[in-house]
């Protein structure tokens, strides 16, 4: 019996963590990035490809825009709001990224969009903000070969 592709094992095992569908290729696809996409966001419509990556097609609630480069201070706060300097007239796969074309039967009727955001990290914040999610594994964190007290 031949072994399944690595991404199938990965997806199968990490699905049990109930955080969602695990992507084996988490990198944002560069083609869509070039046209103003900034990685997966709420309202994206796309395809989960055979490799375990996400191919973005369009977004149903947002229109991508250009904002100025972030300052070094803002790099520590990824969510900080910045004023837009213009809209992208960009195309993704030959289709406009904005919503009009994606709603052949009319425009969406959205009420308030509310997002919940949570941080995923070790409980023991003093050591490191990192986290390890796994199945059939145990994990420890060590500094210079010395294993830190067990992260809860």
């Amino acid at each position, binding site marked *: 019996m031949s*072994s399944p592709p690595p991404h199938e094992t*990965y*997806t*199968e*095992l990490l*699905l*049990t963590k*109930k*955080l*969602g569908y*695990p*992507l*084996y290729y*988490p*990198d*944002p696809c560069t083609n869509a990035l070039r046209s103003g996409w900034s990685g*997966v*966001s*709420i*309202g994206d*419509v796309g395809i989960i490809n055979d490799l375990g990556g*996400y191919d973005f097609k369009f977004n*149903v609630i947002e229109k991508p825009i*250009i904002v100025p480069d972030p300052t070094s201070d803002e790099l520590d*706060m*990824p*969510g*900080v*709001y910045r004023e837009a300097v213009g809209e992208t007239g960009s195309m993704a796969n030959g289709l406009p990224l904005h919503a009009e074309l*994606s*709603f*052949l039967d009319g*425009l*969406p009727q959205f009420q308030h*969009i*509310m*997002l*919940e*955001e*949570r*941080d*995923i*990290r*070790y*409980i023991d*914040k003093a050591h*490191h*903000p*990192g*986290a*390890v999610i*796994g*199945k*059939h*594994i145990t*994990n*420890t964190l060590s500094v*210079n*070969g010395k294993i830190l007290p067990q*992260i809860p």
Partner: protein
Amino acid sequence: MARFYRRSRNAVQFLRTFYTNLPLHRPIRAGLTFNIECSSEKAASLILPNGATRMDVHDEQLGQFFNLARQHGASWLRLFPFTGTSLCLVTGCVKTSSWALMSLYGYSKSGGLSMKFGVAPGAGPITWTWLEAGPADTRHSTDTDDSNRNHCVFLRGIMISKKDPKKWIWRSRQNKEQVNLDVLGTSKNLPFNMGGGNSASGSTTGAPTSGGSSSSNSGGQHNAALRNLSQNVDGGDTDSKSVITPDIGSEYLAGDIDIEPLTEVPVVSYSSLSAWLGLI
């Protein structure tokens, strides 16, 4: 000048409240190593050196996305006829700036397998890499200093696919636009009534390519479908058949990772959204 692209925040406003002053990103420290011990012939893990941010549409809003998918799913599928049979409308994700993952299958050596992910020794630029991986298949992000959390490691959403062709024959007499809607990768209870007759199903599918996703056809059957909210994947992983906890957060708190709220609930007015959409 390189342009920095970011999504419009007009449609979705964030009111961020930080409960901690700790930065979300820390510089790489030499000597820091993540040690992974595999105890089974099959194992997988995801290392998030700088943590991650989990984003979700508020529970009460999920109904809107389902209605949207039900209404427009068929036309969206027609837009991409050659790229696959199903589309995914994202309603939640876990995003990070740096990650390392590994997948192991068929490792039979006794004593387990030890793996290490950390800073490679030696001169030159400090980068994280897999120091020991054995026979496992590994990947890691190339740019661990990227402060934009735009790498998506977990995806939740609504899978939109064509109806089963066998059932298409009689359904086409009622409504040609009907599509299958499946919940992707979540065990969360959907806090709304699907309604709408048999135009959508509330079944779950773990892997979109598994092809084994069942569907319950009426909205009234939605609760019955929720009882089957387990991962619909093939394989002998007994743990995946354990009792499903509906609330992801509390279950996860009992584990090794803390999930804490970072934001207050943002609100966007309908008028600004409809203005953007060109309704007024």
